């Protein structure tokens, strides 16, 4: 890493810490081009700068522009190999300076060039159902295998499943963080972070190094998640979920929004159902998305898994009966016992056989489902 890049990133981090609204900051960056020049302009009390920024910002520039503060930022930046890009750079994702409440400075780790590919943003709750997590991972994997970059928010739950699915599908994935890139948040995802970077992916944040993950950061960074994608997919959201904030950003930004219907009785997808009632586009497979986006030139490696092929794996009539019960979706043990009319001991045995052969799996809540 070039030292001067780290110095410039430190100046930009200092600038980002001032929390100047983008509409005020963008003209300053256009005028001076680099953070370093802005810093010196502030130190020399450049009259042009006072025209562009209100006096209290100028004052704060002086109080925070100390050697110690800059050194602290410089150390964080070199330690974590953080890079930066501003709205005047060629590599800056153009879309982010066009959205309402635009972004002027971005910090990142990894490779910015993965934003050149086709991109889909996937969002959903941290508290997700098992089925939702599984669906998110599968759809991300299939999209990724047809060359699409998945963008998500790196949070627990659906976000993590999307990143993991994307990595498994072979495309790089982009994580938009709600804190400084030096912070390991959420802690459970530290190994995922390494995987993202090792697979040519990207971690980005508009928050300067050292910024903690504050609650209000997250709805704010959601506009970047929706802004970076060509379309936005909502996997699972409850009625007051942050994912719905992302969806409304997406609609304001004029993005296509796809909503996964989820299980009609599941409390985890109340938000999805509300959006669908309001007329959102629904989808159930990765192919639906590709078709709607006119991206079918490179179809995904879908697992061939039609209903009949599952049934053909059955070795006897009872197995067929059990699989038939499971075709509509996950079923509890009691439901299976009632529908198939088998004694519990026998049913348990059949379920084990099917599990060992990899046809079904058991999920929390004493339920069984066909492996898709």
């Amino acid at each position, binding site marked *: 890493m070039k030292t001067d890049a780290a110095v410039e990133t430190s100046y930009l981090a200092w600038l980002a810490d001032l929390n100047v609204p983008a509409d005020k900051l963008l003209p300053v960056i256009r005028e001076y081009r680099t953070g370093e020049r802005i810093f010196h302009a502030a130190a020399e009390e450049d009259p042009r700068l006072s025209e562009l920024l209100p006096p209290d910002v100028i004052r704060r520039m002086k109080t925070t522009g100390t050697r110690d503060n800059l050194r602290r930022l410089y150390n964080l930046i070199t330690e974590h190999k953080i890079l930066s890009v501003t709205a005047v750079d060629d590599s800056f994702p153009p879309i982010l300076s066009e959205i309402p409440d635009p972004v002027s400075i971005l910090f990142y780790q990894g490779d910015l060039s993965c934003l050149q590919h086709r991109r889909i943003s996937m969002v959903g709750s*941290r*508290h997700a*159902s*098992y089925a939702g997590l599984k669906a998110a991972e599968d759809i991300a994997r299939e999209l990724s295998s047809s060359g699409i970059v998945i963008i998500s928010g790196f949070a*627990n*739950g659906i976000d993590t499943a999307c990143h993991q699915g994307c990595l498994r599908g072979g495309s790089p994935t982009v994580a938009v963080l709600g804190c400084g890139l030096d912070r390991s948040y*959420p*802690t*459970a995802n530290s190994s995922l972070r390494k995987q993202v970077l090792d697979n040519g992916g990207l971690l980005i944040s508009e928050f300067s190094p050292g910024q903690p993950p504050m609650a209000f950061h997250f709805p704010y960074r959601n506009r970047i998640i929706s802004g970076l994608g060509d379309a936005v997919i909502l996997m699972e959201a*409850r009625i007051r979920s942050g994912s719905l904030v992302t969806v409304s950003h997406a609609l304001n930004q004029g993005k296509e929004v796809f909503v996964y219907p989820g299980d009609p*009785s*599941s*409390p*985890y997808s109340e938000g999805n159902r509300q959006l669908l009632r309001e007329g959102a586009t629904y989808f159930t497979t990765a192919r639906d998305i590709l078709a709607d986006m006119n991206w079918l030139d490179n179809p995904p490696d879908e697992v061939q898994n039609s209903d009949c092929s599952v049934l053909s794996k059955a070795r006897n009539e009872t197995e067929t009966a059990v699989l038939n019960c499971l075709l509509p979706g996950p079923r*509890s*043990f*009691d439901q299976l*016992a009632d529908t198939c009319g088998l004694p*519990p*001991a*026998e049913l*348990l*045995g*059949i*379920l*084990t*056989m099917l*599990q*060992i052969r*990899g046809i079904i799996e*058991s*999920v*929390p*809540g*004493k*339920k069984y489902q066909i492996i898709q």
Partner: protein
Amino acid sequence: MSNQMAKVLTFGVSGVNGFPVQTEVFCVDGMPMMEIIGLPDTAVRESKNRINAAIISSGVKLPVSRVTFNLAPADIRKEGPSFDLPMAVGLLIASGEVSPRDDFDPDNTAFFGELGLDGCIRRVNGVLPMVISAKEHGVREVILPDGNAREAACIEGLRVIPVSHLREVIRYLNGTENIVPEEPVAFEQLKREASCPVDMAQIRGQSAARRALEVAAAGGHNLIMIGVPGSGKTMLARCVPGILPPMTFEESLETTRIHSISGRLPSGSGLMVTRPFCAPHHSASVASLIGGGQDARPGEVSLAHNGVLFLDELPEFSRSALEALRQPLEDGIVSVSRVKRQAQYQSSFMLIAAMNPCPCGYFGSSQRACHCTPPEIRRYLDRVSGPLLDRIDIQIEVDSVPVSAITGSAAAESSAVVAARVASARSVQYERYRKSALFCNAQLDSNSIRRFCVPDAEGSRLLHAAADSMHMSMRGYHRVLKVARTIADLAGEETISSVHIAEAVQYRELDQKYWR
């Protein structure tokens, strides 16, 4: 009056065993005072006031004399108020107020009982071990509070004289009143009165859990249930005493002894015939679970001896309490050591544990959303340590039953039907292990598993496939074999076939889902 001396036999309790105590009373002319020697505790030392008042209330006027009570042997601590009656009787004889009839045999008659100030005789704890010890020492007649009579009448070959007032005792000894001995209580008759508060027939749905309980009861396996709040875990657990095989006389004696010394027997009850069900709250301390206190009292694990110990909200129990369970689970006995006393209590129980799948309780629920993050769930599950889980053979998941299923479905099998199948599976095991020191499949160790749990070719192929696909540990593998042995016993088959293995595998699946 010059000096007079009397000896009366009684018994004390140490641990779960009784020991004979010779109550010697010595009266001599002098300043009126009473002294008790022979290592009495506070309750015994206070008895002189009760004795004095009770004797006066019975209408007897004591001569002015100096009285010394000695409780021999003098080197064992005497506890509790059961010495009141023998001491009072001794004093009455020594002072000449009572002249026992000719057939009174002081060496073969034992007295127990607490006195009230009005002369009434109250029931005491620990009568069963005292009576058993009395019989071993050749005692033929016991005179004790009527609240304890039924308990003592369960021991054959003893005349049990129930008394409720000191006046009755005086008249009985003088031969002016005859008291009808308590009818001996036949164990078989008590057994007919056995009842379990919850019957399997009351449980709707839950076919998988019912089956798992049956298997657990048939092999004596410990069991853990994971499920959302309100899924019926507690009710399922409460059924278990009712489907376990009926208690034998020996088992009943062992269990009643422990309950007797802890004062847990209801007044007027005989031997316990229903297997105990102990459900300590999760705030329980190590001492209350395992046993302890100054005088090394038995804990919940011993009260649950030959029965069921139910630990609801398992992860909420303190770590030290859960770790302390490992010894009784392994050995079926606990040694409780305190500075003043050491005791060994039997504690061979069936452990049934229940827990929620996550801190909020709704992980995996189809009806409500869970609020927990994966690390929170991880931390919650990790509170149950591996070594404890290793001692639990059967793991099941319980989901709540929708209301429609509760009202709609027909009545299920009753406990009696299930208990019959369990009993026959147990008798198969009893026959098989007669030559070894085992009683049920749960006690098999890895050596005996290799000997007794050999699946047929198809079964072992399946087991290996399952072990591979589910990443089973060696311990998990052994547990599946043990449970498969029980399932085969339930089916009345000697060889373990693939069907049995396939079912047994389902009782380990939580290892994959939760503790992986």
